[in-house]
């Protein structure tokens, strides 16, 4: 089956006062229709930037895409005008974000914002009354207790969970093909978090959505997604079905993330942390970016290691993967072939 979203060799840098910051480095990622992918990694690894850059939401300058391509349903998105991108955003791709407290405009009623968004999603082709009908319908779909009342409220009059439901309603009103959920539950408390995750799983099913869910929490991702891509310092280090990530992780960073998950039958002081910090992306190491924190580090780690498949649908970028060869060895092989 063809991919819905196909990101190929995407690199993005930020031009800062201190130099060039390599935020995304040669990332490839594809998503099939109906697939729910979790994009996991620690804060600052580039998960949000990757998904926002793909749809032209990272201000440039300071950001600059240096190479790659992003195709949605076969259409190249990079290089599109802002006007054309607006047609894509909202209508085909919807986004919801981390902190529902700050993603609604404080000085406009929820209803006004919903109606404006819905009209924009339809390219202005529907009037306010029709948009209002859709908005109220969506508010019901996300199980808000009293849609009409929430429609006429200002954001500060609503709770965090309600606001996130409103943002989800706003995002899905256009019946998009792809939903990007950027840490949608991080700012919510645990019971609300569970409700929102249930709601999202329900809507993904109902509306036949594809979804990329960004999170730093593998546990959250496991509730909704069938596949996980693990990102580290601007690169994807492992990409596999959710079961395989939990059962047979290969990359030491993935293992580290799993070790950091709390478990009901394990005392909290047994939680493992990964020592060290992200490498300096103003001057990233040429090889594996995790090498500086890795307990399995060896000399080959200082050479670039591409993401490669080790099993169907399971790719890893690590010298530890079964059958991995270092580029130096690969180069001699190529020579022999010639």
């Amino acid at each position: 089956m063809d991919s819905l979203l196909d990101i190929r060799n995407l690199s993005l840098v930020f031009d800062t006062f201190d130099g060039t910051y390599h935020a995304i480095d040669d990332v490839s990622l594809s998503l099939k229709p109906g697939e729910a992918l979790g994009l996991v990694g620690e804060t600052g690894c580039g998960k949000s930037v990757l998904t926002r850059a793909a749809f032209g939401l990272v201000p440039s300058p300071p950001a600059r895409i240096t190479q790659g391509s992003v195709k949605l349903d076969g259409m190249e998105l990079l290089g599109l005008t802002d006007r054309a991108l607006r047609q894509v955003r909202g209508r085909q791709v919807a986004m919801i974000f981390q902190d529902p407290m700050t993603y609604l405009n404080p000085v406009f009623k929820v209803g006004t914002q919903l109606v404006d968004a819905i009209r924009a999603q339809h390219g202005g082709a529907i009037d306010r009354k029709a948009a209002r009908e859709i908005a109220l319908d969506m508010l019901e779909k996300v199980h808000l207790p009293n849609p009409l009342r929430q429609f006429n409220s200002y954001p500060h009059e609503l709770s965090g969970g309600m606001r996130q439901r409103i943002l989800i309603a706003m995002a899905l009103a256009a019946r998009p093909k792809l939903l990007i959920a950027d840490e949608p539950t991080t700012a919510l408390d645990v019971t609300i978090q569970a409700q929102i995750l249930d709601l999202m799983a329900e809507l993904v099913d109902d509306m036949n959505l594809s979804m990329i869910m960004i999170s730093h929490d593998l546990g959250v991702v496991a509730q909704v997604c069938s596949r996980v891509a693990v990102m580290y310092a601007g690169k994807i280090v492992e990409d596999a079905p959710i079961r395989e990530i939990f059962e047979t992780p290969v990359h030491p960073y993935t293992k580290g993330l799993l070790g950091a998950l709390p478990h009901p039958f394990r005392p909290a002081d047994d939680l493992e942390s990964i020592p060290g910090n992200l490498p300096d992306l103003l001057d990233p190491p040429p090889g594996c970016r995790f090498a500086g924190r890795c307990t399995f580090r060896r000399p080959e780690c200082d050479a670039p290691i591409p993401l490669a498949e080790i099993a169907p649908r399971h790719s890893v970028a690590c010298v530890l993967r079964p059958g991995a060869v270092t580029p130096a060895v690969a180069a001699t092989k190529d020579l022999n072939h010639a």
Partner: protein
Amino acid sequence: MLKLIAKRMGLMVVMLLGLAVITFTIANVAPGDPARLAAGPDANQAMVEQIRVERGFDRPLPVRFVLYVDQLLHGDFGSSVYTGRPVARDIAQFLPATVELVLFSISIAIVLGVPLGVIAAVRQNKPIDHAIRLLSVSGVALPMFWLGLMLQWYLALDLGLFPLGGRLGIFTDVPEPITGMISIDALLRGQFAVAGEALWHMVLPATALSFPALAAIIRVNRAEMLEVLGRDYVTNARAQGIGPWRIIAVYSLKNAILPTLAMIGLRFGWMLGGTVLVEGVFDFPGLGLYAAKAAVSSDFEPIMAVTLTLGAAFMLINLVIDLLYAVLDPRVRNQI
């Protein structure tokens, strides 16, 4: 809302009383003998003493203050020692001219300042932003009276584009007063040519007077817009596909205008008190010029009256600004 207004009005009375105490004290400890001024240069010592007793200048300060407040409460601003005219009549004559000039000036500053601030923010660090910054820096740096003199020199004297000063040409009849503001009175009476002429006379003084306020409004609005444009709800609006014009002019500006509004209120007050230089340069018969003349001649009653009038105007403006805040921001609205 009504409760807030009532509360603020009550507070205003207290604040005005405080203002009266301060001004009263300063005006009375400042050098200058009001009795001698009132008596005139040819009066002998006996006449001066007689006036001193007649007018109560010989009584202790606190007593005189209480008497003065009592007089105010009866709606009497007293009269000028110098001209003998009732101060209330002077203020009624001069205040509308100043209010007219200030309203015109603040309108210029708002109408130009808000959009320029927005443009500078949207085109941050582009040539247009630098050009606007040059304008706003010069607005802060150039003294108002100097700018007024230069405008008068080049545009009025050399090029003859604008009148040198005054409120109307000397051959034009002033319309029958309604508000005392000539342009508005003329409009109300359908004398459009006269209204145009009055506005024409205000262009140069208003430009000079509005320049510092324009600079301040541009700077605040630019900074606020920059901040708001980086907020999450703007990202979300963009992610929904809402057009840039609506995002900037509606979604962002309504948030950014709130702090700008506070600045506008402050500048409005400043302008009321700061008209004296501009009125002097353009021979514009307003309250500033009147107050300056009174101050120079230690004319006590006009000084007090002008200070209290301007103080009350300043407080009223700030009340209006606070109410506008509530209109624009639902979070403020819920608190009052």
